[in-house]
């Protein structure tokens, strides 16, 4: 049961062949069986899950207001507030934080009747590309336990890949949904900035953060999007636009779709086998009637540098709130206010978080603001323009999601810059605020390869249609890790 997709399970639930309680038991049994090896979760919410499952079964019995996700076990990334349930951001500074409210995505998921089975591990405050920066424990890639699951939503991606959850939420600031989806062989979707409310998402870089689904196939992504997308008065950056029924985008047809392959992301620095997988995916799309052309993105070379000035700058400001006053950890031995700040933040934050606070503070500080932060904001404009120009000729753009498949645990931790460069293909999309998906498109030495499909702002549907068509005509999404 736990190996199936939400839409398959919905049919079984709606026809009462299985109950949500049985399904939740199966998912929790799977967690018991593999979690000591994968370590995808920070918190498993067993009792809460059974309570929600029983209420879902009631709803199904009465046949009232069924959502396709009613009764389906879902995992929530641990940076989304869940009322009364630990929300740690995988940080020691929030190790005991019990939110007094639900994030908007969480309340929408609850209203749909889905069953929250736990909170997933992540790089601390979503800063990282491997989940090794978790202040709790590292997560292991179910395809090869010696490799990383990607990050920062590594726990969510690993949980879905290992069938420890039917689907999950993630957040994506520079690739944090798509890159782990690519490494773990699942589907990961970052919607357009503003499409999904960030209310109750612990802020990292507010102009870039966006919540989205991690699922076993594109159909499940559409189902979860239907639940979480839409305007929210509690998030002033959420956009007040009508939300389509994303199921209508699940059409097996890319005839005459104009697909641009990003030249700069198919050249140097890309693993040969990753490139080959993406090339055969393009052939496949071409065979299905798409028109493929190559598009140049000269500014992409500068995207990583741009991102690693803007994101830390926003983070240094956002993370000023961890001042030990109203919630979170406090160094109780501090004799005065200033040492309370210094000591609490020294003990509570991990190394990568401190590095980024330092980098961001420096980029914003007097004398360096123009040279670093403002310059980066201007280059951001150039990157956005390059993408806009490409979309005058293309319906979607494609690239590998990541330059390589999953790397080994410990391989990049000593050199932050080499870790940062693994986000090269995903970062430009956040800088421009566009929607993009990663879907499984191949395998290299037993590890999954991801294909990234990028769309225009608020045109999630074309992205989903391209991804769905590819998926319907290939088998990669059906592969399971040898756990």
């Amino acid at each position: 049961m736990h190996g199936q997709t939400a839409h398959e399970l919905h049919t079984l639930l709606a026809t009462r062949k299985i109950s949500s309680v049985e399904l939740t038991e199966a998912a929790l049994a799977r967690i018991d069986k593999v979690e000591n090896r994968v370590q995808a979760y920070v918190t498993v919410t067993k009792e809460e899950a059974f309570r929600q499952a029983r209420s879902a079964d009631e709803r199904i019995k009465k046949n009232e207001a069924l959502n396709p996700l009613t009764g389906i076990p879902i995992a929530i990334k641990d940076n989304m507030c869940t009322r009364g349930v630990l929300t740690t951001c995988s940080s020691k500074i929030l190790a005991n934080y019990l939110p007094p409210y639900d994030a908007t995505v969480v309340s929408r998921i609850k209203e749909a009747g889905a069953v929250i089975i736990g909170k997933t591990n992540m790089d601390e405050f979503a800063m990282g590309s491997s989940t090794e920066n978790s202040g709790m424990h590292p997560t292991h890639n179910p395809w090869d336990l010696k490799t990383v699951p990607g990050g920062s939503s590594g726990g969510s991606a690993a949980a879905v890949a290992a069938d420890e959850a039917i689907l999950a939420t993630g957040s994506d600031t520079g690739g944090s949904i798509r890159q782990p989806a690519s490494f773990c062989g699942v589907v990961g979707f970052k919607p357009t900035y503003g499409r999904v409310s960030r209310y109750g998402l612990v802020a990292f870089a507010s102009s870039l953060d966006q919540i989205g689904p991690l699922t076993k196939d594109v159909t499940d992504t559409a189902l979860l999007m239907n639940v979480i997308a839409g305007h929210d008065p509690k998030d002033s950056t959420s956009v007040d636009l009508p939300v389509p029924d994303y199921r209508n985008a699940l059409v097996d047809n890319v005839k005459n779709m104009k697909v641009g392959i990003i030249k700069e992301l198919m050249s140097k620095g890309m693993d040969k086998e990753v490139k080959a997988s993406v090339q055969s995916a393009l052939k496949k799309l071409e065979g299905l009637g798409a028109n493929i052309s190559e598009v140049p993105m000269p500014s992409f070379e500068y995207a990583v540098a741009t991102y690693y000035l803007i994101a830390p700058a926003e983070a240094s400001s956002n993370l000023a709130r961890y001042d030990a006053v109203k919630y979170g950890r406090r160094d109780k031995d501090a004799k005065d206010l200033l040492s309370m700040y210094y000591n609490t933040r020294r003990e509570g934050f991990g190394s990568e978080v401190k590095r980024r606070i330092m980098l961001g503070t420096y980029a914003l500080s007097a004398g360096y603001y123009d040279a670093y932060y403002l310059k980066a904001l201007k280059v951001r404009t150039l990157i956005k323009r390059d993408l806009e120009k490409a979309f005058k000729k293309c319906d979607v753009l494609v690239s590998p999601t990541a330059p390589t498949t999953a790397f080994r645990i410990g391989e990049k931790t000593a050199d932050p810059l080499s870790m940062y460069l693994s986000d090269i293909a995903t970062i430009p999309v956040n800088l421009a605020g566009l929607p993009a998906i990663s879907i499984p498109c191949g395998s290299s030495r037993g590890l999954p390869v991801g294909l990234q499909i990028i769309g225009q702002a608020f045109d999630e549907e074309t992205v989903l249609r391209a991804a769905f068509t590819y998926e319907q005509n290939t088998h990669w999404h059906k592969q399971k890790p040898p756990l």
Partner: protein
Amino acid sequence: MKIDVEHVARLARLGLSPEEKKLFEQQLSAILEYADILKELDTEGVPPTSHAIPMKNVLREDQVVPCQNADEIIANAPEEEARMFRVPKIME
């Protein structure tokens, strides 16, 4: 490039161990050196983008609504006294 790590840490109210100071000095220099590639680009007359999607101020009338979760908020206090957040002395 040499970065005054102690000054930046002070601005961020961030305590660092001596090892971290040494490590960050070297790592931040390497990252900023890499970021210097941005100088290759002519951005004369290019407007900065702080948000990719057009943003506008969202205003509404203030409304008084009852607080439903005051106990839960207070329960998160690192130190509490009489339903108030207790902090170290700020003024002499």
